[in-house]
């Protein structure tokens, strides 16, 4: 339908106040508010409805536009972050330009945060008055269409990144998978078995890793990091830094003869993949099924790098393949992608931060991940659970919630520790027949088959003691043993249990460089430091930066099934953008009013995107609409007021401010 003649003075505004069930209506007097809105100049109709976002609520608005010839719509409901799009679409379906609409945030900004109904209602009146005055000045705008580059960047090669990469690659999209370590696989590659089914982690992970390497649609770059991200949804330009491996990936065939030939006859370097419980050589492969199957040289321990005087037996044995290159340099590569999935994973809590648990002081205190390597058949002990002195433990204490649910370290629950503690209890018992004590605060087993697994482990004879461990120290009565002290809160007594081995179930934390990564990708973090999703329920894998999605533990602690599910969701979100081929963006960009611009160039250096240039022949500034992201900094700086920003025009904001203050 043709739009009615539409000026600010003739605007016919419809105000719709939402009750949001009782969320708004309990604290804001919606009837008084509606009556008040109806009296405002320019308001043709004011209504309230139980749920404005529901189908009947939307119909009410559309009918108002059609039957009462409304030309502007104000909806006073929840945060615009939640439903602004919904109501813009409603406005458009009613036959108006979608930008003849303004949203008032009554729920998050008034009813949920105030208790005094009268004060909240007065505030709501002010907000509605401001919105009505502002919306009358709105202009019809057209959404900007941005094309989407079909290439996808995935950062992090753990199970989340792997799964997302394979999903997208199988759909025919080209994926760049970037991993900063020498192999993909992430934490999952370190695990022995996975709860609650006790599948072997390697058996389910390594085939996927191999598929990544062989997939024609995946470009896998290990030992690589992202240093810069420019651009915007659909058109990101990403700078990748390739760190030197000192081995040519294309030339190395993974025969590993060089490892045997290394002048170090014995492995002497603590091996990070085995949590430093085992040793490796300066030239090594992180683990036998590493992908890519290419050795890597550790610059810190290699004699050639330290002295330059090595016999280079590795080069000798490599022979004609000539895969070893001590001269390899860092390389910078720039790629263009349309969407990005961050799957940068987590960091395990450093148990040394809780000194009274004795990690790093008493050799027989281990972390969960260390024991994970001990029980692994490919681990440093070949799957034997033995103490550092070679003894088999007869009693083992597993301490839950180390660095989780603790005011002094992390307040969040790490979600996986209860289950992996149960799994370790089962595996230790199976391998050593030791007596196992689990010290827990609450047993959290909320997943398919989890509670059943708990029952199974309990039936196997693991002892469960409900109480947070207060102290761990050497048992004065028994050489080589440790005493675990905890209040058993079910029996109301303090227990002192002597054990041979302590396992600290360390929690999950954000990566130490999460803040830098966050800034590089223009993301936010939630209070624990994990990346913030766009909406906790309705957009759990999206971020506030369009075209960037989250998968796995970088968004918060989660187990493998949840991680894989989220990775699939992130891939689907990226796919949805790629397949439609374009994205519509809010047109809140800035323009120069040429007739007013004096060509003073104040704005030009202020633009962070170099979107402003000077038209030399006219001596006027000009804004490239494609580059402009609509921050409005230039608008605020223009001395002659010759730059305007769509949706945030000076006059619109003045009206809003004055509307707020124009109380009766």
């Amino acid at each position, binding site marked *: 339908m043709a739009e009615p003649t539409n000026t600010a003075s003739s605007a016919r505004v419809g105000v719709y106040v939402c009750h949001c069930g009782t969320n708004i209506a309990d604290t804001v007097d919606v009837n008084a508010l509606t009556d008040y809105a109806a009296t405002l100049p320019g308001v043709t109709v004011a209504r309230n409805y139980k749920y404005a976002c529901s189908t009947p609520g939307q119909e009410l608005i559309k009918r108002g536009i059609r039957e009462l010839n409304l030309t502007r719509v104000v909806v006073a409901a929840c945060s615009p972050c939640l439903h602004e799009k919904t109501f813009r679409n409603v406005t458009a379906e009613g036959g108006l330009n979608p930008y003849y609409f303004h949203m008032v945030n009554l729920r998050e900004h008034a009813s949920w945060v105030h208790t005094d109904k009268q004060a909240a209602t007065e*505030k709501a009146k002010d907000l509605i008055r401001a919105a009505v005055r502002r919306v009358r000045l709105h202009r019809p705008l057209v959404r900007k269409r941005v094309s989407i580059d079909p290439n996808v960047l995935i950062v992090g090669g753990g199970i989340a990144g792997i799964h997302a990469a394979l999903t997208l690659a199988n759909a025919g999209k080209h994926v760049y998978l970037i991993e900063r370590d020498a192999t993909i696989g992430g934490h999952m590659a370190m695990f022995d078995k996975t709860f609650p089914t006790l599948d072997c982690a390697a058996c389910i992970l390594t085939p996927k890793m191999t598929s990544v390497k062989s997939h024609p649609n995946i470009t896998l770059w290990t030992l690589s990091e992202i240093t810069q991200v420019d651009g915007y949804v659909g058109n990101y330009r990403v700078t990748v830094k390739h760190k030197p491996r000192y081995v040519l990936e294309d030339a190395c065939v993974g025969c590993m003869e060089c490892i045997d030939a290394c002048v170090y006859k014995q492995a002497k370097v603590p091996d990070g993949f085995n949590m430093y419980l085992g040793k490796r050589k300066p030239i090594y492969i992180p683990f036998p099924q590493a992908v890519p199957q290419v050795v890597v040289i550790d610059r810190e321990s290699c004699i050639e790098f330290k002295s330059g005087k090595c016999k280079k037996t590795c080069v000798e044995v490599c022979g004609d393949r000539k895969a070893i290159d001590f001269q390899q340099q860092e390389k910078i590569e720039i790629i263009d992608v349309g969407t990005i999935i961050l799957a940068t994973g987590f960091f395990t809590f450093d148990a040394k931060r809780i000194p009274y648990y004795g990690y790093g002081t008493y050799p027989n205190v281990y972390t969960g991940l260390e024991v994970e390597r001990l029980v692994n058949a490919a681990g440093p002990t070949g799957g034997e659970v033995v103490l550092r002195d070679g003894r088999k433990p007869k009693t083992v204490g597993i301490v839950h919630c180390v660095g989780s649910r603790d005011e002094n370290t992390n307040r969040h629950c790490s979600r996986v520790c209860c289950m992996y503690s149960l799994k370790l209890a089962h595996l230790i018992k199976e391998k050593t027949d030791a007596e196992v004590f689990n010290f827990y605060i609450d047993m959290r087993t909320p997943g398919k088959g989890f509670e059943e697994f708990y029952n199974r482990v309990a039936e196997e004879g693991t002892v469960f003691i409900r109480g947070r461990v207060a102290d761990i120290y050497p048992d004065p009565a028994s050489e080589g043993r440790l005493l675990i002290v905890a209040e058993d809160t079910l029996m109301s007594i303090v227990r002192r249990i002597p054990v041979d081995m302590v396992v600290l179930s360390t929690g999950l934390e954000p990566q130490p460089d999460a803040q830098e990564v966050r800034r590089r990708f223009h993301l936010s973090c939630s209070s624990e430091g994990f990346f913030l999703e766009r909406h906790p329920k309705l957009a759990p894998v999206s971020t506030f930066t369009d075209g960037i999605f989250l998968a796995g533990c970088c968004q918060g602690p989660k187990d493998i099934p949840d991680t894989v599910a989220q990775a699939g969701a992130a891939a689907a979100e990226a796919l949805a953008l790629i397949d439609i081929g374009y994205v519509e963006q809010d047109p809140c960009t800035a323009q120069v009013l040429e007739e007013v611009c004096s060509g003073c160039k104040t704005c030009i250096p202020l633009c962070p995107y170099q979107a402003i240039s000077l038209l030399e022949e006219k001596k006027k500034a000009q804004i490239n609409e494609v580059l402009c992201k609509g921050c*409005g900094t230039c608008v605020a700086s223009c001395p002659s007021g010759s730059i305007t920003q769509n949706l945030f025009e000076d006059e619109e904001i003045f009206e809003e*401010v004055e509307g707020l203050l124009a109380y009766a």
Partner: protein
Amino acid sequence: MPDAMPNSSQAMTAVAVQSPFEPRIVAFFCNWCTYLAADLAGTSRLKYAANVRVVRVMCSGRVDPQFVLDAFAHGADGVLIGGCHPGDCHYQEGNYKALRRYRLLKRLLGQMGIEEERLRLEWISASEAERFRWVMNDMVEHVRVLGPLHFEPAKEVFAEEVAV
């Protein structure tokens, strides 16, 4: 401090002369940080003073000093600008522009006879709901102590200066 202001509505309507002074504060919040912190305060049901009215902008760098002056001229007792922490700007550096303008604006306000404390710039990230609540209450309390904005004496001073 109490979560909600008693009698604030009377003061808002400015009819009840006897009622205690309730500051009127206009806030300009960046869409990506402080506005989201305000939303998070809402979803977390944190309670704070009902005196602040929010204008959403895409970036604190969009806050034209004229908006602030306009708010004071139309009866605001305080103005709050909320932006992203340094280094965190969604548009790379708009918050630094806001900071520069804020510093100049403070001096200008002082010269106009408006207490500088009536204008405040705060960095509040999307996750800092608790801090957001604190800033809101703290701002209201500060402005409450300052009392209503009296612009009249300043006007007289300006008139005198112009006369000389």
